[in-house]
């Protein structure tokens, strides 16, 4: 990498610290720190939710996946993302905003306690959120740090610090306001980088149709005809192809990653900070466009990279890239883009990591303050709450950074597993619970316990033998428990859905 590319990435990281001061004035009170005094408008809200949702895995794993999988992976990943974001903004956003505004609840676990009249449900929500989000953040850190360490030619440990320290500085200085404005900046950068990446790859291959024609005439590694990339039950990981499980695996992974957004607490918490219900109404138009645009630009590019890379690298390198597809887009960009532009493009996964870490850490900080400290000790002193919120944000940013030195798996799978498990746990208690009057606390508790147990254990013990993605059984069983256990109890007369 040239020094100009490195400089651009460092400038992007430095800019986030400067933007952090934008939230300084508001972050002098607890409400200002965690909810920006409810001043977030539609553009910042829509960009912030999009940038939080898309981590480095969206650019690296999502972009490179079809280097191994057939184009059905890109098509269905895009489809589930669009369906998910439309449901998030149209069905979930406004109702959640009205609920939390009317009952003045300030966190997802607090919402769960209020909705189901159960302190135990709140405690379980806290434990599940902290556990899964820390696991998820490990993969987010690794995605960003791998790019930084490669581009700057430094150790992964130093790269992790370069990623973590600016985020800690700007969330401690400016809280949610700073993180949300930074997400507007970082989200814009991600969209620009996605546009450049798409343009360079499509220009090289002569457009999507011409590119597919070339691909069908190729024989990858002399054993996989290019036509396999045009069949939904075609190309995939070889062990999965042997068991004829490519279609279920593709649908399972893409559903898990794309639909998770409708029940992710680190996205939902941002609706609390909306200026008013009009901000949600306008965001409802902007939000789906941003997610759909990014998904359409990025998620199908990997297959076309065979045309660009395979005659420039050795067969063993092609085979290695098909095992670790996270490197496909960065390597392609290094081939196609000129100095400067490639720095800008490769800043995108770094930006994506920072934006996801910031809002996730703030979500955990709010949970620590509101759902643990305030529940146990009844602290109400404004300065003390602010101190706890800021220090816990820094601690929650540091824990996964330390764990990132130990964890080692493919980014897209780790994010998929954590995302999917959170989705399985909270789809019933949060999303369906907003509408379904009859939902009960026993159902909510069972949903969270079964979701996390099945999601994690299936991933660890059954995924590699069945090739059924863990989110699918976890969601089915968690939802079944939520619905059946709610139906056997009498409806709660106190619940007043909007």
């Amino acid at each position, binding site marked *: 990498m040239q020094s100009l590319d490195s400089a651009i990435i460092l400038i992007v990281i430095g800019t986030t610290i400067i933007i952090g001061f934008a939230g300084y004035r508001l972050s002098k009170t607890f409400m200002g720190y965690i909810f920006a005094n409810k001043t977030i408008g539609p553009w910042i809200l829509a960009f912030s939710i999009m940038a939080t949702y898309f981590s480095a895995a969206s650019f690296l794993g999502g972009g490179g996946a079809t280097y191994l999988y*057939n*184009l*059905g992976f*890109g*098509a*269905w990943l*895009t*489809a589930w*993302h*669009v*369906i998910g*974001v*439309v449901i998030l*903004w*149209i069905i979930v956003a406004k109702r959640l905003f009205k609920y939390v505004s009317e009952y003045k609840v300030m966190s997802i676990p607090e919402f769960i306690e209020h909705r189901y009249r159960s302190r135990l449900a709140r405690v379980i929500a806290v434990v599940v959120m902290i556990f899964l989000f820390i696991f998820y953040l490990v993969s987010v850190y690794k995605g960003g740090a791998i790019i930084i360490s490669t581009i700057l030619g430094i150790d992964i440990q130093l790269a992790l610090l370069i990623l973590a320290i600016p985020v800690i500085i700007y969330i401690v200085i400016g809280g949610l306001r700073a993180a949300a404005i930074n997400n507007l900046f970082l989200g814009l950068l991600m969209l620009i980088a996605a546009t450049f990446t798409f343009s360079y790859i499509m220009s090289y291959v002569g457009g999507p*149709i011409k590119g*597919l*024609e070339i691909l*069908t005439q190729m024989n990858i590694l002399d054993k996989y005809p290019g036509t396999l990339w*045009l*069949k*939904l*039950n*075609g190309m995939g990981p070889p062990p999965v192809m042997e068991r004829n499980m490519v*279609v279920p695996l593709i649908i399972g992974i893409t559903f898990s990653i794309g639909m998770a957004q409708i029940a992710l607490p680190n996205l939902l918490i941002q609706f609390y900070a909306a200026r008013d219900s009009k901000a949600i*109404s*306008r965001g*409802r*138009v902007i939000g*789906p*466009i941003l997610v*759909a645009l990014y*998904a*359409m630009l990025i998620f199908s590019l990997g297959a076309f990279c065979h045309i660009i890379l395979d005659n420039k690298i050795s067969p063993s390198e092609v085979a290695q890239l098909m095992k670790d597809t996270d490197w496909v887009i960065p390597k392609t960009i290094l081939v196609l883009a000129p100095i400067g532009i490639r720095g800008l493009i490769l800043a995108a996964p770094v930006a994506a990591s920072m934006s996801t870490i910031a809002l996730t850490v703030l979500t955990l900080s709010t949970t620590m303050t509101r759902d643990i400290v305030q529940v146990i000790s009844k602290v109400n002193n404004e300065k003390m709450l602010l101190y706890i919120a800021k220090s816990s944000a820094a601690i929650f940013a540091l824990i996964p950074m330390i764990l990132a030195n130990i964890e080692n798996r493919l980014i897209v799978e780790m994010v998929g597993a954590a995302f999917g498990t959170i989705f399985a746990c909270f789809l019933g208690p949060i999303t369906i619970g907003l509408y379904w009057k009859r939902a009960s606390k026993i159902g909510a508790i069972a949903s969270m316990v079964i979701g996390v147990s099945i999601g994690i254990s299936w991933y660890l013990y059954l995924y590699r033998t069945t090739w059924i993605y863990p989110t699918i059984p976890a969601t089915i069983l968690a939802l079944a428990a939520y619905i059946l256990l709610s139906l056997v109890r009498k409806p709660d007369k106190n619940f007043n859905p909007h």
Partner: protein
Amino acid sequence: MEIDIGIIAGYAIALAGLIIGIAFSVYKELKGE
């Protein structure tokens, strides 16, 4: 060149979902909801 219907369906659903989502949101916005 023949592209599997399962792949085309994914892209078609994505496009249709986006159009329906935006149309619904704009309709609601114009109604002031």
